[in-house]
């Protein structure tokens, strides 16, 4: 028996090894190619404007906050759970920090920490609604999002809230080291932690398993409910960190932040899910996000200041295109095309009723 089976296993070993020497495929690395294409295109069109250190610094420093928000969305998505409240979670953080610095004498570090903890608690409430009340995550977090928006309006009374911040805090949000904005370093640090957890630890493995097939995960001994609950707490906390970063960079709260940040984050995660390992993943998300960001920057330079309509158009097309690619590859959730879309829009209430029937 040994002699019989040894050969295929040897083949399997070499096959496994040769995987690492494959050239980057057009599909798995399409975001990288797209990024390069934008650089070449706009470099050619707008050489003096586009290929400047400041363009790169502007894109990278403006993008760090949204990229972190994208990472917040990514975490529960690995477990096939949607958190649409991250945008409002971020702006809630901003208004709370500003308000607290105005109305208390707490040091800014304590304020930031308290706010992040508060958001984690809100995430736990979303988790309760999703896991215990069995509300579909799309609905639960959309509802939570509105509630959070109302809290912001109450605190801010629909006015700008500008807190007073120490110079240190402002530096934390705006300084650079070797030309790299601090904010990007925070982003990379968060990305590294998430990459480690999602790709290297048993916890990450279990999250993907829950995302792939919740029933099978339960039977394999995984507490799917706890994983979903935890992922929603994590996404709330990370979204709150994005809010802290925004406050450090920009400062004041205005009522138009929030939902505007959600969409680019979603687009990046879904586009990223068609990249690299072809499931929701950290580096794919970041690469996809920056490819899109450079495209927008290039278009803005090309069409001038009047091109405020460019960004949403671009993000919208990118989101649809990315989900179409990801769905046809089965990168979202368990199945192919139709299944991925059903996952996007189905009600868990209906699904659980149907499974009771079986």
């Amino acid at each position, binding site marked *: 028996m040994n002699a019989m089976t040894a050969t295929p296993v040897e083949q399997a070993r070499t096959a496994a090894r040769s995987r690492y020497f494959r050239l980057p495929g057009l599909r798995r690395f399409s975001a990288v190619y797209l990024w390069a294409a934008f650089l070449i295109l706009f470099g050619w069109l707008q050489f003096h404007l586009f290929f400047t250190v400041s363009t790169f610094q502007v894109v990278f420093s403006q993008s760090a906050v949204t990229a972190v928000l994208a990472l917040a969305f990514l975490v529960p998505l690995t477990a096939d759970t949607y958190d649409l409240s991250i945008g409002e979670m971020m702006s809630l953080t901003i208004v709370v920090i500003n308000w607290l610095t105005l109305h208390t004498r707490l040091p800014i570090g304590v304020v930031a920490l308290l706010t992040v903890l508060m958001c984690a608690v809100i995430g736990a409430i979303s988790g309760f609604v999703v896991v215990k009340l069995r509300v579909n995550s799309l609905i639960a977090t959309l509802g939570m999002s509105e509630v959070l928006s109302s809290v912001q309006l109450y605190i801010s009374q629909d006015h700008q809230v500008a807190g007073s911040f120490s110079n240190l805090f402002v530096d934390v949000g705006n300084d650079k080291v070797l030309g790299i904005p601090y904010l990007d370093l925070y982003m990379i640090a968060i990305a590294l932690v998430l990459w480690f957890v999602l790709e290297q630890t048993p916890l990450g493995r279990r999250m993907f398993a829950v995302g792939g097939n919740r029933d099978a995960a339960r039977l394999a001994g995984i507490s799917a409910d706890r994983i979903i609950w935890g992922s929603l707490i994590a996404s709330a906390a990370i979204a709150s960190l994005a809010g802290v970063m925004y406050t450090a960079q920009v400062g004041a709260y205005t009522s138009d932040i929030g939902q505007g940040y959600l969409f680019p984050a979603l687009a990046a995660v879904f586009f990223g899910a068609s990249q690299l390992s072809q499931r929701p993943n950290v580096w794919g998300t970041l690469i996809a996000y920056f490819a899109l960001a450079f495209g927008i920057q290039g278009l803005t330079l090309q069409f001038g200041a009047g091109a405020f309509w460019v960004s949403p158009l671009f993000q919208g097309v990118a989101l649809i295109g990315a989900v179409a690619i990801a769905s046809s590859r089965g990168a979202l959730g*368990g199945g192919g095309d139709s299944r991925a879309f059903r996952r996007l829009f189905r009600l868990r209430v209906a699904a659980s009723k149907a499974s009771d029937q079986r």
Partner: protein
Amino acid sequence: MTLRITRLTKSFGAQIALQGVDLAVAYGEVHALVGQNGSGKSTLIKVLSGYHQPDPGAEAELAGRPFQLGSAHAATAAGLRFVHQDLALVLQLSILDNVMLGRTYPLGLGGRIRSRVAAERVRGYLHQVGVDADVRLPVASLSPAERSAVAIARALSDTGAERLLLVLDEPTAALPSDDVSRLLDAVRRLREEGHGILLVSHHLGEVLDIADHITVLRDGRVAASVRRSEVNQRGLTELIVGHSLVPAEVVSHGQRLAGLAQEPVLRIRNLRGGRMTCLDLDVLPGEIVGVAGITGSGRESLASLITGGLPHQGQVEVAGTMLRPGQPHRVLAAGAAGVPGERARLGVFPNLSVRTNMTISLLDRHRRLGRIDRRGERGEILDWIERLGIVTQGPDAPIQSLSGGNQQKVLVARALRTRPKLLVLDDPTQGIDIGARAQIHEVVQRCAADGIGILLISTDSDELAGLADRILILAGGRCARVLRRGPAVTAKLIDVSQLEASPEPALAGLSASSEGEP
């Protein structure tokens, strides 16, 4: 004669599913179609309903008018109506909307639905099948028998007074036993109204109870077509199985394996839940205990009840640990591993690789400094790939790239690498190729030799006859019979036992009411 089908042949590639089948069903009669799994019953129904195209040469006519087989439209136009096993009802919608689904509502001014007229009409159809319920109730609030009746009412609904030929595919398989007789009453009522009924069923009891004429399919051919008065249960069983029954060495339920002093790895007492009404069962270390039973007998719930997929009532004890209901991770910790029945729905993670699929239920073994040591993990997986002869491009190949049999072997490896004391296999070789089947059988025997207790739940009688030391035949949610391993225990005997053990509807009504089944 009303429905007449002649020389129906259907082949899938080299495999012939139906060969020269003739069938004649008259209006005003209940015609039962019986046969074992794989005898061609479902293929026949699928050809009738237009899902499959028959091979050339088949002819069909209804009430003297020929119609084309293999076309759903032609079948409906000719007057055939189908109620499939899964009923195809939308649970959230009302009875009214379900019956009117895909039909034209009576419309009033400006395209408004005239609800009162529609409700009146639907009430009429429901009355025909003997259900008296508010048509505005959602179907989800109905009992299983009432749901079947609604599905039948829907089949009746788009005709008016015309006579129909109704095809009922396993209408009672999903019903609790006390509901069966109510559904059969509805079928009788339809017969009295002059409709023709073609009833597909596994339950010989109900077939003998209600049918006027019985056609037996065996290996794709009509083995017999007889009047009800010409056969009894034993005769019918012989026709289905295709040989004279050998008297069997039958051990009655309740007798245990004697002389073994070992503690059982699985001890089940008074197990209830799903379709199970009451089951006692022991599995000793190294013993292979088979479980058989037709659909609806409780067989399909047993694995989920033990492994925590369904919450159970009663006692389930694995290697001395009492299991709490519905907690799969505690089941694993107690030392029981399962290979689930529906591979795609309950087993495989389609987004993960072979390696991650295999190790998911026990990752701590390769944990180093909080992360997974992939080299160690890959090494172990290569070992399992070799041991079970899994054909894959490598440990990192996507699980979806493997054949069904090899995916199943991955699931077996997932269970075995937790070093279980008890292995629960639910139809482990269903739908996989012969080679993989043989390999899985070999693994099962090796595990038993190593002292793992094995519960083998299977619809494959050959598998049970070949492997099991003891076979429990389930019927009506309880153990009806126990077959001890011996030369007399053959696949045929297991088939026969399952058919004979199916409870007669009249008796089932009594026993279920005394149980107080939900």
